[in-house]
């Protein structure tokens, strides 16, 4: 029998969780809806799911706390897509730090949620990262640079902030998650298609050259991202994980 992805929806608003559940069901997914963290825990005692859609603004139970719990229990590999009610950078950052794989701001469209769910599932299944960042506030260090994975920017040796565009960040993150491993253009394209999948149409080659410029990498003799003829690219330096820093 073909596997049908099982999505657990945790939201305190009865109508929203039922509307979301029905929409996903209509689109071929299996869904379970629960109202809070307590119900979620008791459901997960006896069941496993493929992805959890979690509202972080729930009365009584802090969604962020629930998310952090998920990341240390037996379901730590289950991807989490967070719903936030606030259009707030800090919420997004904290959510991603707590281990959510993606987030969506309310009000959202159901079809956008569906697209995100599919993207997260595809991403986590296709190529599991060989470098797993599990704890919050990590800095990824490589060469002369550090990448702040929560604020999504680079820091140079002096601690000066060097901003990255969304696409640049996603590409660099894919490289850093799979260091010293050759990645084909198709793989890179698939892995970088996160949030703005439909909007992202730059070729990988252009993005790589932009990223090299940002890293002050010499295009003819690159130290960070090397071209592998007829195969793709490889991030050639080792990557270190640092704890949270100021």
């Amino acid at each position: 029998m073909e596997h049908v992805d099982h999505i657990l929806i945790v939201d305190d608003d009865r109508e929203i969780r039922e509307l979301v559940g029905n929409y996903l069901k209509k689109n071929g997914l299996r869904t379970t809806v629960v109202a809070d963290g307590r119900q979620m825990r008791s459901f997960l005692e006896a069941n496993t799911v493929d992805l959890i859609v979690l509202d972080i603004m729930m009365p009584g139970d802090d969604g962020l706390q629930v998310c952090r719990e998920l990341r240390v229990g037996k379901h730590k590999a289950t991807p989490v897509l967070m719903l936030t009610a606030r259009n707030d950078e800090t919420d997004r950052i904290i959510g991603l730090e707590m281990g959510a794989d993606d987030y969506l701001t309310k009000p959202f469209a159901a079809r956008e949620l569906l697209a995100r769910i599919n993207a997260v599932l595809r991403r986590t299944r296709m190529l599991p990262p060989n470098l797993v960042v599990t704890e919050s506030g990590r800095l990824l260090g490589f060469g002369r640079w550090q990448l702040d994975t929560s604020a999504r920017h680079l820091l140079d040796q002096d601690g000066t902030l060097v901003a990255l565009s969304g696409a640049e960040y996603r590409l660099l993150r894919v490289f850093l998650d799979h260091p010293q491993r050759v990645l084909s253009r198709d793989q890179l394209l698939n892995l970088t298609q996160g949030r703005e999948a439909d909007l992202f149409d730059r070729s990988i080659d252009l993005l790589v050259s932009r990223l090299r410029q940002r890293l002050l990498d010499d295009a003819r003799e690159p130290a960070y991202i090397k071209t592998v003829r007829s195969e793709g690219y490889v991030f050639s330096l080792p990557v270190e994980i640092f704890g949270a820093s100021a």
Partner: protein
Amino acid sequence: MSFRLQWPRTLASRLSLIFLVGLILAQALSFGAQYYERFQSARSTMLGNMRNDVSTSIAILDRLPAQERPAWLKQLSRTNYDYLLSVGESGAPLDPEADEVPVAVTSISAALGGAHPLGFTRFAGEQKHFQAHVRLSDGSPVTIDVRPAMPPLSPWLPGVLLGQLALLIACTWLAVRIAIRPLARLANAVDTLDPNAHPVMLDEQGPIEVAHAARAFNAMQTRIAAYLKERMQLLAAISHDLQTPITRMKLRAEFMDDSVEKDKLWHDLGEMEHLVREGVAYARSIHGSTEESRRTDLDAFLDSLVFDYQDMGKDVRLIGKSAAVIDTRPQALRRVLVNLTDNALKFAGAAEVWVEAHKDSLAITVMDRGPGIADAELAHVLQPFYRVENSRNRDTGGTGLGLAIAQQLAMALGGSLTLSNREGGGLCAVLKLPLQP
């Protein structure tokens, strides 16, 4: 030509003037009274002495043999008068019964008491110089030459007076300063009062009135901040609570069959959602950000911003390089530029971002070739919920908050935002930021 005294403009100089004039007048009055009193008593003492002295001297001369008299003259001579053994000089006769005779005349008359024939002459020119002509018992003449003079003033008196004046000026200056300073401090505090920033409390120390004013000011400041906070919380709460019903409606709309009605509903929900988001963002921008300042590479920052637009297929170009590293709050700066660029894209479909570094400031300019804004309305569009009155804007469904948010955040970043119309049409928004050395 008339000369009019100008009443000084500052409270400090007015108070100083009043104090100084009053104190100097009072001081002069008391000095004058004392001086007069001293003059009076000195004169009566002197006249008393003179009377005894003259009667004694004349009696001595009268009894001395004529040839011994000259030897005594020296001992009988006094500061203000001396004796001559002659008929004296001729001058205008002086009538002792007349009104304006020197008091010494009366003293001499009283001293001789009619014992000897007596006549007076006065001399023009020198003040009150007169001579008394006396005949001794043997018929020889004696003249008393009187040159009245004030008792001399002590040489240190002008010094003391100057010292007093200096003391008066110093005390006046000190008093006025003490009175004015709290007022200046209060005015300064009101000037810099920014209810959105952290309140700067006045020192509630000092004299009772000053402490009272400071307390009242601090209380007012706290009240204003509380009102503003309440207003912002209300806006944020309404915006926030609208999100749940809008989410439900959007989800429900997705179960509807495709139709014009569904599209319209979808569009309306999109507008509501946008307003809610901007409302929250505005409330947050007013209320001050908790974001920390970071050293930021400005060129990379602008590159990333423009690339994000280009990746979404938007026509946004970056022109110029600043080579600057600035201390700023990146999320707030990003929000300002995103709002300006979104605005340009909305009205013109394309935007140019210029960056220029000057000696101590840098300018980031977002320009478009859209319809621009009428000059009269330029100042108003930075106010929240203000929309330019033309049909074009209604269609695009702006919230009227984007530019207000940009303005608030620009100020929070220590910069300024100014709008102007470009030559050849279009809007030009200049964000000026301070450039630290």
